[in-house]
């Protein structure tokens, strides 16, 4: 055998670079490196020549200058006198907001539709199949525009709510659906720290309480598991967990004096409460039902991937039907569902950039739209935009991969 792989005798010849498999990959990589360098240099030299000809340069100084435009939906303080950087941050927060909301609702829609597609009920099954096929096969941009049109053209204007016999009325006197957006009651703290206006500190307190409750509840669950392993009897954690979740937050809200501010018609428009703009609702709802159709297919495939023998084995062990679902089928289906679910969440985040079509001020509309057009800094804006989406995508897939790994089947 060894004779076959004897090192070649004699000196190194140039043809061995191509014909000897030990050197060939080196040669090919060297060629690829040279070609890549040449291509990059060519692009760079074109860029430099074009910029010189247009009298431009690459600089990110425009981020500090005044933006000069208004944004109708902001999560943080922003005026037209703020900087372009602030406008971009407002856009980033708006992107994250709509992506988060759409991920939550799309999961709910998707799981419901996916489970109902496997229902015994023929009509429901067909209805859900129709939902999935219709929404999957029509571009999301068209859905966004359709729902945006419903929000602007079909909803009544605030004027219709006026008078003794108004054409429209508020739902439960709490929600007003108008063509300018949906007005909902807004919470505020009457005895809050930092006066009745409410300060950020109050919300930090609320969130801190919720996080503490989360860890408290988890501790109780772990304790129950430990006791179950020691004694075989699982203590009922439902009531303690409910108390841990609800008790502290209710007490805190009573102390801070949580109240709700109702939207009310003042002049030509509603005032008070929280205004959720039409573009946000259109984008949120369209992304949810569109992606929900894809998630429904993933859920269906996941449940069908659990072999029938598992259900039958569980039934043979005497487990009740709903516990078969929660203890045997779902944990295994989840393992199949999670990886495609991650990519659907990524798709929602990326598709939220279609906000620009309905005028929702996400990062694409602020940094990539108005700022780009006003400053003319095309290259810088588009590069920053891509960088933001790359970071978001990589973060989401990293976080979800950690979760996926914790769910994965542990083999040896």
């Amino acid at each position, binding site marked *: 055998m060894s004779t076959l792989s004897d090192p070649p005798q004699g000196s190194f010849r140039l043809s061995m670079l191509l014909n000897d498999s030990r050197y060939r*990959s080196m040669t*090919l*990589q060297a060629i*690829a*490196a040279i070609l*890549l360098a040449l291509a990059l240099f060519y*692009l760079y030299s*074109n*860029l430099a*020549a*074009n*910029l010189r*000809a247009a009298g431009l340069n690459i600089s990110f100084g425009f981020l500090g200058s005044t933006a000069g435009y208004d944004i109708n939906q902001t999560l943080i303080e922003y005026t037209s006198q703020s900087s372009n950087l602030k406008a971009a941050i407002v856009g980033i927060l708006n992107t994250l907001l709509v992506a988060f909301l759409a991920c939550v609702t799309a999961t709910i829609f998707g799981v419901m539709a996916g489970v109902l597609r496997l*229902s*015994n*009920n*023929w*009509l*429901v099954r067909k*209805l859900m199949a129709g939902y999935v*096929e*219709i929404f*999957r*096969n*029509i*571009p*999301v*941009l*068209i859905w966004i*525009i*359709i729902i945006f*049109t419903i929000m602007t*053209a079909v909803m009544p204007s605030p004027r219709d709510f006026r008078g003794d016999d108004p054409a429209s009325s508020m739902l439960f006197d709490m929600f007003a659906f108008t063509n300018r957006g949906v007005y909902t009651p807004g919470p505020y703290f009457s005895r809050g720290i930092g006066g009745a206006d409410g300060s950020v500190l109050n919300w930090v307190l609320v969130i801190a309480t919720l996080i503490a409750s989360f860890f408290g509840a988890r501790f109780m669950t772990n304790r129950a598991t430990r006791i179950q392993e020691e004694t075989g009897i699982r203590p009922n954690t439902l009531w303690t967990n409910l108390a841990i979740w609800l008790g502290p937050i209710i007490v805190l809200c009573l102390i801070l004096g949580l109240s709700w501010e109702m939207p009310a018609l003042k002049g030509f428009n509603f005032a008070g409460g929280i205004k959720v703009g039409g573009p946000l609702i259109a984008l949120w709802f369209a992304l949810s039902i569109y992606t929900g159709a894809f998630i429904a297919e993933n859920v269906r495939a996941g449940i069908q991937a659990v072999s029938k023998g598992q259900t039958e084995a569980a039934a043979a062990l005497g487990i009740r039907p709903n516990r078969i679902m929660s203890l045997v089928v779902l944990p295994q289906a989840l393992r199949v569902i999670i990886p495609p679910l991650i990519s659907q969440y990524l798709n929602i985040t*990326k*598709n939220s*950039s*279609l906000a*620009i*079509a309905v005028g929702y001020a996400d990062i*694409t509309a602020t940094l*990539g739209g108005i700022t*780009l057009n006003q400053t003319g800094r*095309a*290259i810088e804006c*588009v590069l920053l*935009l*891509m960088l933001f*989406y*790359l970071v978001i*995508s*990589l973060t989401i897939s990293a976080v979800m991969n950690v979760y996926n790994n914790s769910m994965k089947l542990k083999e040896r």
Partner: protein
Amino acid sequence: MSDTHEHSIPFVRETELPQQPAPSNAAGPVKWMRDNLFATWANALLTVAAAYILFLIFSSTLPWIFGGLWTTSSLAECREILQGTSAACFSVLTERWNQLIFGFKYPPEYYWRPTVALVLMFVALAPVLFFDLPRKLLILTALFPFAAYWLIWGGTIWIPIMALVGFIVGYFVYARFVAQNFALGFFGGVAAAMVTWYIGGLIVPMIAPAVPALEAVPSRDLGGFMLNMMLGLTCVSLSIPLGIALALGRQSSMPLIKWICVVFIEFIRGVPLITLLFVASVMLAYFFPPEATVDLFLRVVIMITMFSAAYIAEVIRGGLAALPKGQYEAADSLGLDYAQAMRLIILPQALKISIPGIVNIAVGLFKDTTLVSVISMFDLVGMIRGPILASTDWNGVYWELLGFAAVLFFVVCYGISQYSQWLERRLATDHR
């Protein structure tokens, strides 16, 4: 028989009873409804709820659709005839049909050209989609891009002919050398084609007639659903070879090649298509030589092709990974080199596995071509939101137009996905 029991049993039936139909609640539609619609209380409630939803949907849309008007010339006229009843005004579709399909700038006297190209497209796609057709028809498929280019853009016929000649020369050089060495054949073919195109570029201006047979139409005049079809078809066909190359590169044992492919794929997959279209519309021009003018259509095609190639590469990588390792080892043990092993053993199987994934990407890409309306190209959605809804005649006809766009996309995308399912069943060679 009957005698033996005569005294012990009062009655014995001696003839067989004719078969009776099953009770009405254990067969037929009643049983079906009991099993499938009203099996339990919860199920019955669900059925009623679903039926109510369907009733709401159809009771509002069906009169609207069937009461629709098709022949008025403006929304005002439509409303006058309808007298306040709720019905569709489909006349916007008949009146603006050409704009919806061809865009608003394509010369009306040349509408027959894209139409012929569309018919040719079906002829060219047929042998690709259905294997039973004679393989000779693939020649038509190969000729189609050049014919379609000439029909849609017009201009001198010598440009597509020269492009075709370049491909033919490249193919013959490839066929001559491929038996010796795949790399030699491939790069020789590419080089020969390049030389032919360079020479052709010098010759064409000399032999082209002053007045071409088909008048040239600049690509900024393209629009409507035609633009969606063109972008979808071009980008999908271009991105499949690029995707295969990227997938093979990502599997490569050479670190540099692998690294280039991974960075490219992950970068493209990490950003939304809109940002890539922004690159095409505002940024890409900076990277071309100052004297070159690359029109927006071509820049968009480049970016969308890169976009879908990255996704197709991931699908094909999945196909390559799904092949049993024995296939690779068998190819090696037969003494095949890398190009032979890939071409003859690995890729045919890996591509077959990847077909459903590739079709999914193609459908997604076709839907995503509507995004070009954001960078002010007038595709179907761009036409609806731009010139048509902004015109005084049709300001406010939302549902008819958006519904038309939705139906058009649904028909195409649903058709493609049904084809893909048929193909999957057709290609299944395993025994189940």
